[in-house]
């Protein structure tokens, strides 16, 4: 049995997605961790046999410039998916190379980052027919 799960550190994702897609055919697991740690958690899942279905990097925001990331994975596939491992290791490497000043994000910016993360995931849900 394949189990689809979105691993996310975006606190508003679950509520907004379940509102928009009442019949969403995948789980949403919230983890209260930073961007890099979320990627590492996804890597742990890959080592346990998960396959990554959405790209771990954003389309135009540098990793960690946004605090939020959501990644769709398919759990309980047997064996190690080398493509997924390659993808997540590259993403972690990309993430570590950027320089970031410590900063306090204003509420409206936090909201924007959450929206962008959500819309990327919605785009994947829409094209994959998971609703």
């Amino acid at each position, binding site marked *: 049995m394949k189990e689809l799960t979105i691993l996310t550190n975006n606190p508003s994702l679950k509520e907004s997605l379940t509102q928009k897609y009442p019949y969403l055919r995948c789980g949403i697991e919230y983890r209260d961790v930073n961007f890099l740690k979320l990627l590492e958690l996804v890597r742990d899942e890959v080592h346990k046999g998960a396959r*990554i*279905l*959405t*790209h*771990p*990097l*954003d*389309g*135009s*925001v*540098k*990793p960690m*410039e*946004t605090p939020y990331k959501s990644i*769709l994975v398919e759990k309980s596939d047997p064996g190690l998916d080398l493509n997924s491992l390659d*993808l997540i290791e*590259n*993403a972690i*490497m*990309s993430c570590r*190379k*950027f*320089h*970031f*000043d410590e*900063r*306090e994000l*204003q509420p*409206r*910016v936090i909201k*924007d*980052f959450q*929206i*962008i993360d959500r*819309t*990327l*995931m*919605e*785009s*994947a849900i829409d*094209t*994959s027919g998971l609703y």
Partner: protein
Amino acid sequence: MKLELGKLTIRDIRFSEESKISEGILYVSKEDLRRVALTEEKIKSADFDIARPGESVRITPVKDVVEPRVKTEGPGGIFPGFIAGVDTVGSGKTLALKGMAVVTTGPIVNFQEGVIDMSGPGADYTPFSKLLNLCVICEPVDNCEKHQYESALRMAGLKIASFVAGLGKDIAPEETETFETPDLLTGMKAFPELPRVAYVQMLQSQGLLHDTYVYGVDAKKILPTVLYPTESMDGAILSGNCVSACDKNPTYIHENNPIVEDLFKQHGKTINFVAHVITNENVFLADKERSSNQTAKLCKMLGLDAVIISEEGFGNPDTDLIMNCKKIEAEGIKTVIVTDEYAGRDGKSQSLADADKAADALVTAGNANQLVRLPKLDKVIGTMDYISKIAGSSDKALQSDGSIEVEIQVITGATSEVGFHTLSAR
């Protein structure tokens, strides 16, 4: 397909009671412009300003840049699917107002809009500092969702550009350039000895606020397809992006794509420029696989010898770029990729998030992480409220003397991945 592109250079823009173009001067009535902008029901108020090259002016946050164009002969209209119907464009005659642009500004997404400096060191990093910019500043209605605001501001920019271009419809162009692409069979017979080359353009399409449109269709929903290269000159591809400013393609760049123009210059001489292939950059990995498979298939079907592939954006599109490159090369077709780099502020880190040995010919458009100090300028069109929030900036960007220290990522068009910019290694 043959397009005659007429060019009329605008030498100044002035606000006036009456809207007209006379002796190279564009006179516009703010009332006329406001009437056009307010046809968008999600726009509460619209204001306008003019920024000229060399002035101490900063425009921010920049949403889109549009070159006014109008069809003067032949089927269809500019910006098909939005302003005009969906007739196929790219043939007949088009008039472009050169030397100017319509620039839309508004804080849609706090961190994903750009900066255009009209003077100082920042001006060197953006091609749009060389233009007379008619700036459109729109406030949304209350409780307007971000994607509605984006759509309204995008449409307002397109409508104003079309209105302005319409003022020049009956004026004879100062010069005319002709672009012609024969059908496949004719081209093959005409240039049997020349290598068959196409342009593969990747379009940013990751989702709401990361969108590009083709004949009105959201590019994330297309299968890769083939255009005549002149279609984009009539606005068949346009930007709905609120993404990283340095390497998104504003609508202006789609209309004036330098890869298309350069390939035309070599057409019939050193190459046979066969087609403009467009593909997307989606989030779902299966979409990436499907689109790159289809792109490689089209390249093979077209009997190509070589392609130039341009990326838009960075991060996960790096994966699309490498998939396209690898799969097209696997069909025995040579590739050159055009991208920019996110190599860290010291330029020492790996530039792309993905790589493959097939990607052995690459043109770089610069390192988006390069730091630059932009002095305080006398006037701001838009607002500086978001300057520390834009991607490539930081809370420490604003210095005590009013200057800002930022990565060139904040500057609109700084590392344009179709080479429409001033950074060069030459």
